[in-house]
């Protein structure tokens, strides 16, 4: 198997993990899906670090593994009480959402890719920008997960997935300086910590009369 095939295989696996998360109603399965996704992105970073002999990508991979893979997963799992509403998200029509999701992300990604991303030159595969489709799909998949679900935990996972899409975009296109990337990771981690405070108080989000208009 050549290098291109490995990149595509990892990218496709990341996308599968995103669709797996979208198809779940069990919160714990979503959190584990996010863990697998983060590990796969770390593997992509390690692979490119090896091929490009880049220390930055190596450090980036380690950061993804530690901060996204381990810390965020641990934090989400430990903050989850045993109440049913946290464990299982009720009132979710998974097949219907899947359909809407596919239509939404295919249209969004097609438009954005054809306008701008098709002419970018990624470091991972110069001359072939099609790998950039995967981060875009992941980004919009995360965005859709946030908008389509009402559970606090699911929306946090959606946010992390959206961020994963951007990390993958930076890995494939051009990694931004590691000091900035590290700051971004810490920001996201802090945001997840802050969000987890809300999870204890408020499991789901509905319309409220006081907040209308």
């Amino acid at each position, binding site marked *: 198997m050549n290098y291109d095939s490995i990149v595509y295989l990892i990218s496709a696996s990341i996308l599968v993990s995103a669709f797996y998360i979208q198809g779940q109603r069990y919160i714990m399965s979503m959190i584990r899906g996010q863990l697998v996704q983060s590990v796969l992105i770390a593997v992509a970073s390690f692979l490119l670090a090896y091929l490009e002999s880049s220390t930055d990508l190596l450090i980036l991979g380690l950061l993804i593994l530690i901060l996204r893979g381990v810390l965020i997963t641990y934090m989400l799992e430990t903050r989850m009480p045993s109440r049913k509403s946290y464990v299982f998200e009720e009132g979710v029509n998974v097949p219907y959402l899947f359909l809407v999701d596919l239509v939404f992300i295919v249209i969004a990604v097609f438009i954005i890719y054809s306008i701008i991303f098709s002419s970018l030159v990624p470091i991972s595969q110069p001359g072939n920008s099609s790998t950039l489709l995967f981060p875009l799909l992941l980004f919009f998949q995360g965005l859709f997960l946030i908008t389509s679900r009402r559970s606090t935990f699911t929306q946090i996972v959606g946010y992390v997935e959206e961020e994963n899409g*951007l990390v993958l975009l930076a890995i494939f296109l051009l990694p*931004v*300086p590691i000091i900035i990337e590290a700051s971004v990771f810490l920001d996201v981690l802090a*945001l997840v910590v802050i*969000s987890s405070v*809300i999870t204890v*108080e408020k499991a789901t989000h509905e319309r409220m009369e006081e*907040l209308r*208009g």
Partner: protein
Amino acid sequence: MTPGTLISILLLLVPGIASIFYFRNIRMATVAAAALDEILSVLLFWIMPPQGFFFVDRTTDVFIFMITSIYLLSSIYSLRYISDRNATGLKQPTYYLLLNLFAVSMLFSAQINNYGLMWVGIEATTISSALLIMTEKSEESLEATWRYIIIVSAGVTFAFISIILIYYSFGTLTVSTILSAGRTNTLFVRVAVSIALIGFGTKVGVFPVHTWLPDAHSEAPSPVSAMFSGVLLPTALYVLYRIFQIDPITSLFIWFGTISIVAASLFLGYQARYKRMFAYSTMENMNLALIGIATMNPLGIVGALYLLISHSFSKAGAFYSSGSVLRSTGTKDVANVKGIAKKMPITSAALLMSSLGVSGTPPFGTFFGEILILYSMVLVNAVPEFIIVVIFLVFAFVGINLNVSRMIFGSPGDNSEPGRLMPAVSLVASIVPLAIGAFFMVVNNAIL
């Protein structure tokens, strides 16, 4: 290290040092830190740091002065407003700790000479301010906190694509290097600037990504609402301005600003709760400032700065007096607050002046800012947008002042002023825009 660099560093360190007093009188330490930061921000007008780690010019100075001023007023106002009885969601020391971090994150975003770290700073403002919304821990404040976290984070994350594209185009993220390279008009840069409008626009209050704004402003405690409205949104606008400078897409920004003003004025018109009404007024003013900046005309930019600085004090005054009204009447509904003028004269005066200020009444500074922006719109041939904006500014003016008049005048109720400190801070904040207006008139007479 130059004196200017030292001042910039101290601006960031001082609120942090105040947080060390977490276990012992952090309230007064916060006020002292805010006062010291205010002095440092004034010094920065004369002693600026050289370009390097920081990027500070005259525009930045104005934003830093705004941030430190509202930080100082809010920390003083909090002394009375935030008590153990009503701060059930956060402990008092935690409230002041987060208030300090919130100020630091804004000062960092405004001074730093790197687009990537600006993004980090803006995201840090969300982290430090989110929990402040749920200080009073009602069901609504929890929901508003969550909406703020998830909507703003999702939007600002989108802006990171813009940062990646800037890095891809220039090979650096240093603000001074990129801006000194001159205007760059490539497809990638244009897309980066457009994405920034939506991404950072989420925090500025650009339609349709503004939806967190009325919820967070109405449910946060008043001193925090004042910080949000008076300085958080302008800080996000400042970052957007720095990205816009790379490749100004004037027409796109002016149209987005115009549509947002229309939306804000319409929403504002039917608000039944006064804090939400002021939140939509913030959206209207921020987008007018966005238009001023987007004209890239010196008059428009100066107008935007006049508008922003006057608005920050006026809106802080509006939220402080709203806080006093809320403490006294226990309701956020306009319909349930009547005739407060007799029993709450200072709060009423502050509320009236603030509402006149935020709606751009002469001779408040906001009025002169608006005039300069509208004039610069004509100069760049944005005539259809100019007509639409003028119509909806009038609409917003009537909406705000009608509601505030209903609250102030009429048969007196049995409310009373909530002590002396809160009304006094409200009054000070609402008078400053008058001084700014007077300053504008004096300066222009001198020029003429």
